[in-house]
C-alpha cells in the first residue's frame, strides 16, 4: 500500500520546484508598478483602516504577550489528559513524574509572575 509513495515524493519535488521557480523568476520578469491599492493589505474588499477595533488605536502589545502566555500554559494541559486516562496503570511513578512536570511549569509561572508578566499595566 505504501509503495505508492513515489508519486508523493514527486509531488513534493514538483511543489518545491514550483516555489523555487516562482521565487526566482518573479522578480526578473514581473513589472514593478506599485500603486496605493496594491500595497494595501487585502481585507475582503473593505477599505483597510488603521484603527481595527472600536475604542481607538491599535491592539496593545500586552494583549499578544498575554496571549502567548495563555498558549504556553494552556498547552501544558495536553500532558494532563493522557495522564488522567492512564493514571491507574502508571501508579506512583506516574504521579511523581507528573508532579515534577507541574513543578517545572510552576517555576516558569513563578518567574513570569515575579517579573511582572501578569501585570496588565
Amino acid at each position, binding site marked *: 500500500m505504501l509503495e505508492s509513495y513515489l508519486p508523493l*515524493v514527486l509531488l*513534493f*519535488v514538483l511543489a*518545491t520546484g514550483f*516555489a*523555487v521557480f516562482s*521565487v526566482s523568476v518573479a522578480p526578473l520578469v514581473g513589472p514593478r508598478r506599485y500603486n496605493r491599492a496594491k500595497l494595501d493589505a487585502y481585507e475582503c474588499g473593505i477599505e483597510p483602516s488603521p484603527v481595527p477595533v472600536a475604542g481607538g488605536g491599535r491592539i496593545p502589545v500586552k494583549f499578544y504577550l498575554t496571549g502567548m502566555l495563555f498558549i504556553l500554559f494552556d498547552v501544558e494541559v495536553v500532558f494532563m489528559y493522557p495522564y488522567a486516562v492512564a493514571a491507574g496503570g502508571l501508579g506512583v511513578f506516574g504521579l511523581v513524574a507528573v508532579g515534577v512536570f507541574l513543578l517545572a511549569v510552576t517555576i516558569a509561572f513563578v518567574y513570569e509572575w515575579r517579573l511582572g508578566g501578569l501585570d496588565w499595566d
Partner: protein
Amino acid sequence: METFLAVQEPLAASGVAEYGWLLIALPLFGAAVLLLGGRRTNAWGHLLGCATVIAAFVYGLALFLSMTGMPADERVRELHLFDWIPVNALNVEFGLRIDPLSMVFVLLITGVGALIHIYSVGYMSHDQAGRTGADNTERRRFFAYLNLFVGAMLILVLGNSFVTLYLGWEGVGLASYLLIAFWQHRPAAATAAKKAFLMNRVGDVGLALAIFLMFAELGTTQYTEVFARAGEMPTGVLLAIALLLLLGACGKSGQFPLQAWLPDAMEGPTPVSALIHAATMVTAGVYLIARSNPIYNLTEDGRLVVTIIGALTLLIGAIIGCAYDDIKKVLAYSTVSQIGYMILAVGLGPAGYALGIFHLLTHGFFKAGLFLGAGSVMHGMNDEVNMRRFGGLAKHMPITFVTFGLGYLALIGFPFLSGYFSKDEIVAAAFAQEGWRGWVFGGAAALGAALTAFYMTRLMLMTFFGEKRWKGQKSADGREYHPHESPASMTVPMIVLAFGSVFGGVLLYSGDRLLGWLEPSLGAVAHAEGGALPHSVIPFLVVGLSAVGVLLAWLLVGRRPVPATAPAQVSFPVRAARADLYGNALNETLFARPGTWLTRALVYVDNRGVDGLVNGIAALLGGSSGRLRRAQTGFVRSYALSILGGAVLLTAALLMVRFT
C-alpha cells in the same frame, strides 16, 4: 657475513631504573622554571640550572652502578612510560631504553654537562648579550637553553623508538639553534645559527624519511621490533634506510658534505661549543648509526658509504684545521675530523661500533677540555680568537696551559693518554679491512693522525709559546691585553676534564672494560686479524706519523716568528684550506648554483605556465569565493531556500541511489 651477537631482548625496567624518567624530567623542569619564571628567577636561576644537571648526573651514576651489579644479559632494560600517539595503526609509545649504550651517553652528557654548567656560571657572569642593564636575565636565559639541551639530548639517547629519537633530535637542534644565536646582536651569530638550522634540516629530512620508510615497511618504529624484523625488509629498502639515516647523521654531526655549519657554530658562547658542538650533540650521528647497528649489519654497501664519508671527512677536517688562525675554528675543524674517525669506525661494522663509541667518549673529555681551555684563553684575552695575536701565554695562565696541554697530548695520541688508545684502535680496525679497503681507510686514518698532530702543535705553539705578540696591540674594543688566569669555577672543570683526558683511555681500555660493557647493546667486537698491516705495527706507525706531524709543525711554525697578520701570498693548498677546502664553494656549486639555475628555469616556466596555473587557481578560488559570497545574501528567505534545496537534493539523491 660476519656473525654477530644477536641483539638482546630487553627486560622491563625495575629497581633504580624505574625512575629513569627523572633523567629527562630534571633538566626539562629546570628549563621550564627558568623560561616561565621570568625575572623572578634571575638571582638563583644559574644555580637551579646546575643543580638539575648535577642531580641527573648523580641519578645516572646510581643507575649505572646498579646496572654494573647485574649480569650482562640483564642489562638491557625498557621502561614504558605512556602511549604517546595511539592513532590507529600508528602506535608510538613513549618509553626509555636503558642499556649499556644509552648509559654511556647518559653519563657523558650529564657528567660533561654538569662540569660545563659550573664553568658557565663564571663564564657568563657578566654577559649582557649586547644589552644594557645590570641584571642576570641573559645568564638565566642561557642556563634555560642549556638545560633544555641536556633534556632533549637525554630524550634522544634514552628513547626506545625512532620517533622518540626524532623528538630529541629536533629538541637538540632547537637548543643548538638558540644557543648559537645567543648573541643575536652579532650578525655573524645570527647567520651562523641560520646556517646550522638549514643544514640540519637537510639531515633531518633524511632521518624523517628513514623513519617513514621503516614505518611503511614494518608498521612500527620501536627499536626492539624494528631491529628484530630488520631482516624482513628487502635489501634495497634496507640500503635506502641506511643511507637516509647516514644523511641525518651527517647533518647533525657535521660530516661531509654538510660539515660547513659546525665551524660557523663557534659564534656561540664557548661553553656551548664545548658541550654541544664538541662533546655531545654533534656525536648524535655516531650514536644513531651505532644504535641502528642491526640495520647496518645487514647492508654492507650501506656501511661502505658510511666508511667513505668518515674517511673523507676526517681528512677534510684535518687539512682545513691546519690553515685557520681562529683558535675556536681550528678546534671546530678538529672536531669535524675526529667525528670523521668515529663515523669511520662505526662504518666498519661489528668490528668498529664499540670503537666509535670509545673514541667518542675520550674525545668528549679532551675536546671539551680543549674548548674550555680556549674559552679560558679568550676570557683572559678580551675575547680575542685570532691566534696570531696570542703567544707566550703559558706563563700568564699556567693552569690553562697545563690542562690544555694535556688535552692536546691526548688528542694527538701521545702514548698512554686517552686518545692514544681510542684512535689507534680505529686505525688498526681500518687497516684490518680486506683488500683495497684496508689500505685506503687505514691510510686515511693514519694520515689524519699526522695532520692532527700538525695543526694541534701549531695551535699550541702559536698560543702558549713564542713571542708575546699581543704586547702593545689593542683588541677590537680598544682595550689593551692583560692576560690573566681564569676564576676557579672555570679552572676546576678544566682540571677535571684534563684528568679524564689523561686517564680516561687507560681506564676504559684496560681489560676491555668499555668494549665488554657495550656488548649487550652493540654485539661483541670482532677483532679481525690480518688485513693490510699486522696489528702490532699500528701503534708505532701512528705514533711515528704523529711525531712527524709535531716535528713539521715545530719546523714550520715554532722556529720562525709568526707574523701578526696572516700573510696574503700563500701557496695553493693553504689558500684552499683557508677557504674551507672550498666546502662552501662546493656546496654552492653542487647545490646552491644548480638550485639557482633550476630556480631561474623554474621561475621562467613558472611565470609562463605554473604561475598562470597557480594564479589561475588562486584567482579561481578568490573569484569563486567572492562570487559565492554573494550567495550569502543576508536574506532569511534565501537561506531557507538553500536549506530546502539541500534537503530536496539530498532526499532525491538518496532515493536515486536506492532505486536506480
